[in-house]
């Protein structure tokens, strides 16, 4: 897969990306290329800029880009509003999914899907078709149908919220899925279910950026590349073995000696 993918046009090209949050520089020059079909894992200690990268790519207003560029499918991603990015196929599975009281999952998901369909020039799905589709996707993440009539994330447990994120990802079928610490706070069973949902979406045309603190998730979602973020830069990049090495030796090991598996950030 890797060799074939290398010949493909990149889906995402990040060059010299710098960003700050509340005047504080967080990203200090990120370079990363992701091609369709690839799964990239971003690891790194707390405060290294992992979630900021996810926020900048999805357009969170509180993050300010100060330098660099991001091309998505050849377009200037940073010039698009968050909703335009979403309609172009960029999906963020939130680390802390937000509650929206009084708005049901069913209503919200349908509105989201139909916004995307409208952008693609497709007719909106009607209630019946949407119901059938959502039932099918809910099975994949082990959610009960009655969850559809509850308010978005309201009163959901941590595990239910993460499943709800993956469910939306399954419904919206993004071209670039960014998972921001989707494994945090999950027990091993929930982790498997969530990973299963994510793997379900792996395909030649779709790329994923999996942000995680721990190697554990990557046992279930096996990445093509692993990048280690430190102080706002990609300190090392390598294959899936890098994650295992990191897990065994800890992040501090990187500061002392270059890992065997590392091939260097490009």
């Amino acid at each position: 897969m890797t060799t074939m993918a290398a010949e493909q046009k990149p889906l995402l090209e990040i060059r010299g990306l710098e960003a700050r949050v509340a005047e504080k520089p967080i990203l200090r020059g990120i370079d990363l290329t992701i091609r369709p079909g690839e799964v990239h894992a971003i690891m790194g200690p707390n405060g290294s800029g992992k979630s900021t990268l996810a926020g900048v790519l999805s357009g969170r207003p509180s993050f300010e880009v100060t330098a660099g560029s991001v091309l998505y499918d050849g377009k200037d991603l940073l010039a698009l509003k968050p909703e335009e990015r979403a309609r172009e196929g960029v999906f963020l599975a939130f680390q802390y999914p937000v509650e929206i009281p009084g708005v049901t999952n069913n209503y919200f998901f349908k509105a989201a899907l139909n916004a995307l369909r409208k952008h693609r020039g497709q007719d909106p799905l009607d209630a019946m078709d949407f119901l059938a589709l959502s039932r099918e996707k809910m099975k994949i993440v082990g959610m009960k149908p009655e969850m559809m009539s509850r308010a978005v994330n309201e009163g959901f447990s941590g595990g239910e919220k993460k499943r709800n994120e993956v469910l939306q990802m399954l419904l919206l079928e993004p071209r670039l899925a960014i998972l921001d610490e989707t494994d945090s706070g999950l027990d091993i069973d929930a982790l498997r279910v969530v990973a299963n949902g994510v793997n379900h979406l792996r395909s030649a045309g779709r790329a994923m950026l999996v942000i995680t603190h721990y190697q554990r998730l990557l046992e279930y979602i096996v990445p093509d590349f692993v990048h280690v973020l430190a102080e706002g830069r990609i300190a090392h990049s390598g294959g899936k073995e890098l994650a295992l090495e990191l897990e065994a030796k800890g992040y501090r090991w990187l500061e002392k000696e270059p890992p065997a598996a590392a091939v260097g950030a490009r």
Partner: protein
Amino acid sequence: MSETAELRDLAAKEYEYGFVTNIETERIPKGLSEDIVRLISAKKEEPAWLLEWRLRAYRRFLKMLADGHHPKWAQVSYPEIDFQDMYYYAAPKQQAKYESLDQVDPELVRTYEKLGIPLAEQKRLAGVAVDAVFDSVSVATTYKAELEKHGIIFGSFSDAVKKHPELVRRYLGSVVPYSDNFFAALNSAVFSDGSFAYIPKGVRCPMELSTYFRINAQETGQFERTLIIAEEGAYVSYLEGCTAPQRDENQLHAAVVELIALDDAQIKYSTVQNWYPGDENGRGGIYNFVTKRGACRGVRSKISWTQVETGSTITWKKPSCILQGDDSVGEFYSVALTRNRQQADTGTKMIHIGKNTKSTIVSKGISAGRGSQSYRGLVKIGPKATGARNHSRCDSLLLGDQCGAHTFPYLEVKNATATVEHEATTSKISEDQLFYCRQRGISEEDAVSMIVNGFCREVLRELPMEFAVEAQKLLGVSLEGSVG
């Protein structure tokens, strides 16, 4: 289209109902006097007792005006109203014989069609009987004959005075006496029309009854009265909607609504109020001063008020329940939205008199722009109201930082066995919520509208289906441009 025309269109889109109907109007002279009161009564060919009642109300009003009883307690401000500088009666000149819809002026039929209320026999709304009030008179009522088969009386107030004077005389002013307050006194003196509904014993009204109020004429106030009586075991669901043209002047709307529910009767009263709210600088718009009250006279009777208030430059209303019958139930569900310079002071009064009476208050206030609103509610538990219960919940949602929300709950408990609960919250639409929606492809404006509708859901679900859909749209349209 030129750029300015496009901009104008965009601005006009905000208030869809701001058009004026060109129709010949008959108006009585400007101003307020005893002669004007007599003239209105004469126009209506009213019996002497009603004229007497109006005149008593008028004298009371004059006294209140002289004593400075113009209410000042509400959290609203507006220039003093000049009661001599408006017309108290305006009606389309060519009045059809009220009995036949075919004879209604086609211009009026078109007006209501434009408002989404078809009156013509073949097009009328399924399952909803409509009484159409235009300025000072009722111009048509649909499904009259159908309702008569069930013994239900529904139509204009003036018609009821002529055909069922005994009912009107017995109940008029029995819930809201003319002496109740300043605007009730004014209304009682000069009211020109309104709707009347009577549901006989044991009858469940087979369709929704509704009144559509339209103000059209310039410099004219609308003063209507609604009286609904549900006899023993009867049930009725009544809806009202209101719109007015977009004008720079302020127009006064001062209505009185009285509901009477006897033993085991149930009245559900829903309002979608969309009077012209004025422009973003607070110019123009309707002053909406309304007194609405229901009396649960019978045991186990129930009155429930549901209101969605998005229009008017000033809204002043407290739909209330007097829970007289034992085990009677009062409910108040309200959504009020203020933006630009709109001001609303709304809430309810729940007066518990009978044993085991129960009331529920759910109020949702949304403020945007420089809108200001207050919830003002009274829960009063009388000494004989053993086992009475009340639950109140008042939530405010703020959009932006120039708007305001205030809550004034008043409690008077004179029976130790009563249970009274009050909850209140104030929140802002969070950036996180908006971003979450936008990340899913939903535009910022749609996201705001969705979050607001979610916030109001408890209230909106109390509305009949068609109205709920309309109210949702209305909240969406009213909030356009409120973000950022």
